[in-house]
């Protein structure tokens, strides 16, 4: 029962309450749904510990078996434990906590993200090869919009920003809308199966 019936019922009931609360003007349902959504925040928060536990286990094992990268794993473990202890004892606004945040996490995150500037350049270089008509459409649209976005494009041709804006506003809007609508249909379809318990991939097939 705990394998199948109860989990499927929980999914069904919570899902259906939310869907009806969304569609109908029934105050009780609205309250229930708001409550469920708040619970969701709390249950999700509990999941954080699962992630932490997984990291701890994998890296503890590596240190224990002296696998190649074990030194890094040791550093990871120490940093994780220290940071959690620090955070819980001094709070998110603790001085040292903020210091690590600002001077280590912020630059690490910002710089890793900024590598994207290089990736987008190299991907454009290797992939925008005009071999078919469709590939040409892709590459030409990309180059025109790039030119329209920067001053250099305006020097080449004063109407470049207008061209770029038109490509974004008309063909791009239409194409992306197709993707968005299709995506919505797919999401409705899979969620329909999930709420009704027809789709059980997320329980690994319920171990049946």
């Amino acid at each position, binding site marked *: 029962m705990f394998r199948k019936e109860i989990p499927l019922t929980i999914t069904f009931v919570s899902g259906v309450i939310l869907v009806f609360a969304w*569609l109908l003007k029934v105050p009780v349902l609205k309250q229930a749904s708001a409550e469920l959504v708040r619970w969701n925040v709390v249950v999700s928060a509990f999941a954080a510990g699962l992630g932490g536990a*997984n990291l701890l286990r994998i890296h503890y094992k590596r240190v224990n078996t002296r696998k190649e990268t074990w030194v890094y794993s040791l550093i990871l473990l120490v940093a994780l434990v220290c940071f959690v202890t620090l955070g819980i004892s001094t709070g998110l606004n603790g001085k040292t906590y903020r210091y690590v945040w600002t001077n280590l996490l912020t630059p690490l995150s910002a710089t890793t993200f900024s590598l994207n500037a290089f990736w987008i350049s190299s991907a454009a270089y290797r992939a925008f090869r005009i071999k078919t008509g469709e590939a040409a459409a892709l590459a030409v649209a990309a180059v025109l919009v790039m030119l329209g976005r920067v001053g250099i494009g305006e020097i080449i041709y004063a109407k470049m920003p207008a061209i770029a804006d038109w490509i974004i506003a008309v063909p791009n809007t239409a194409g*992306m809308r197709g993707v*968005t609508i*299709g995506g919505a249909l797919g999401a*409705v379809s*899979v969620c329909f199966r999930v709420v009704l318990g027809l789709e059980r991939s997320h329980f690994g097939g319920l171990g049946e």
Partner: protein
Amino acid sequence: MLEAGKLFAVLFLGAFVIAYWVSSAQYKKTNKVPFRPLAAVEAIDEAIGRATEMGKTVHFTCGRGTFDGQTFAGLDVLRYVARQTALRDTTLIVTNHRAQVHPVTEEIVRSAHLEVGKADTYKPDNVRFISEEQQAYVQGVYGIFEREGVVANIMIGWFFAEALQLAEVAHWVGAVQIAGTTDPAQVPFLAVACDYSLIGEEIYAAGTYLNPDHMKVGTLMAQDVCKYIVAIVSVVGSVLITFGNKSVLDLLKR
């Protein structure tokens, strides 16, 4: 009783359910549907085969979503990938961005091993939570790409900027890539940087192609019916409004 602006949603969902009902019953009887071939789906076997031959690793991720449609689509594909890799004794590393999705992927990989009778080859350490911070997740996956011999990279789910970050680096380490998302901002990057991409709604079809049953095929056919509805409503609505008749627009807003 009905919330304002929800009439169309209700009618639409109703049409979806009816279309599902009819189509799945029909499929149950005939067991035949002319699926449009999707190269990216066919490439999944190829990519896993390549990893098997080389004795290397397959990497899978279902992205950064919590439990939403795209994540479910990714999990559905994972079920197939996990079964195939288990069958062929190929290493599969699953990385997770969301702590809440992590236990679910673990369960899928574990039961895939059970299903094909290879419980002994299941390694829980190959399903990994990395980080809920986007860039830390990216770096963690880079580490796996670099150190664990990834030759096939499958990414299906909700992706943001990391779509390109992962795809481009996977390309460098020499991995075949199959990726898909419905986020319109990221679809272009996957389409450009990956060997095979699933565009938008195709990610939902992928799971049905790989693990077909009458319920999934039914919903897939219902999706197609809904696309006809969308097309007809848009065209008829536009033609009517050109002549000053707003009835379709009003219906949508009721």
